[in-house]
């Protein structure tokens, strides 16, 4: 990574509840991680949003488009319902090392992709060739703007449009078609009561 590459944190916060949560997340970021970092909050649906989406769907769509609207070369996309308890530098350091994405695996459940429809689960299992893939939580997503991640995000959008639901299944299918290098962080970086990122799942939903 060139030292002059821009670094920042991005949020999708559509609607008052999400914006209140994002404000609180940013407050904890400033308090607990003293590195000077720029923050960008997307507060309105993207013009590219397909017609007829709910607010929740618009938020998922915005997430898949983050590489287009984030102003940074190295971005950490954070869910609004997160509280920052420590340094996030390790993620940016991995991007600087050359990794495309840095993420945290979701809690392993017997019912993989439990939030997804039966049909989408089936398609995901078949497309990936895995009946028990490692699901990655997109609530804490570091990424670098590279040709490879550009292709990946394009594919993520294509996959998300197939079902327009939760984004993790689409993420896995996109990885199969446009693989990227992913450095994994442990659960302290994205979990309820996480030491570094405390994820209060669901708090930002309207």
């Amino acid at each position: 990574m060139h030292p002059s590459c821009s670094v920042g944190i991005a949020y999708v916060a559509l609607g008052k509840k999400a914006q209140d949560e994002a404000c609180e997340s940013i407050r904890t970021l400033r308090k607990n991680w003293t590195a000077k970092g720029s923050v960008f909050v997307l507060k309105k649906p993207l013009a590219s949003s397909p017609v007829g989406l709910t607010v929740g769907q618009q938020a998922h769509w915005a997430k898949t488009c983050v590489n287009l609207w984030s102003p940074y070369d190295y971005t950490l996309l954070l869910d609004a319902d997160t509280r920052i308890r420590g340094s996030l530098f390790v993620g940016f350091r991995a991007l600087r090392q050359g990794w495309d994405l840095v993420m945290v695996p979701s809690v392993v459940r017997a019912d993989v992709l439990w939030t997804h429809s039966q049909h989408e689960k089936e398609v995901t299992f078949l497309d990936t060739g895995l009946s028990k893939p490692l699901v990655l939580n997109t609530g804490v997503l570091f990424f670098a703007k590279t040709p490879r991640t550009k292709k990946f995000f394009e594919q993520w959008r294509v996959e998300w449009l197939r079902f327009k639901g939760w984004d993790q299944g689409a993420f896995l299918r996109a990885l199969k078609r446009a693989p990227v290098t992913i450095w994994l962080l442990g659960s302290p970086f994205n979990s309820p009561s996480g030491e570094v990122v405390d994820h209060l799942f669901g708090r930002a939903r309207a």
Partner: protein
Amino acid sequence: MPYIRLTAVKHIRRAGIQKTYHKGDWVKVGKQTALAWLSDGTAEVPGPDPTKAEVVKELLGPGCGVRVLGKGTGPWPTRGFGGCLKLLKFSNGSVALPYPYTMIWDPTSTITPRQVLIGFSQITGREKGALSWEMVARLAGHHLARDVGTKAEQAKTEALIGDLRIPVYDTRVLWVRKTEKTEKLIRRWAISVRAGEDKAHAFLRALYTEGVLLCTLPAA
């Protein structure tokens, strides 16, 4: 037990209510039930079927082999390879990539034919429309780097990566497609292991440094 897909009609009772499922439906049932239905052919799981010779032959084409770790010359516990066995070349010794598509295997780790096929299928990309990963590795349970190895090893890892709150990989079974990056990674790891470094930490450091297209699977 993962989801299974029915190939016949089934009546499944849940919370006292019986529901009929049809051929093609995906269901989640208990392990014993799933295994029974899989063995009698009334259900299947996605991914390559190791009982079908044509599937095995297609996925384990030329260039697939197993590097058995250790000095012994055998016999190795190869029952876990099932129908894949006769299509794979074997060699033994230290960590190396003798084949274009190599499964690096510590014979103390049990494997199944399905796991063997899934690993190879992800790196060969021979399934229709698939791109291939450079490497496949499983996580070693819920362990983080701060939970394993000596303080000295942890310090070395932390100095490179910046944090020890990172998942650890199960290095007893890896599938590797030979590329410039994977060769560098494996060479780096092999040198560290020969020097007596902790296998898990050395792998993390090598992986972090070389950055390959890695398909990570949940712990076995």
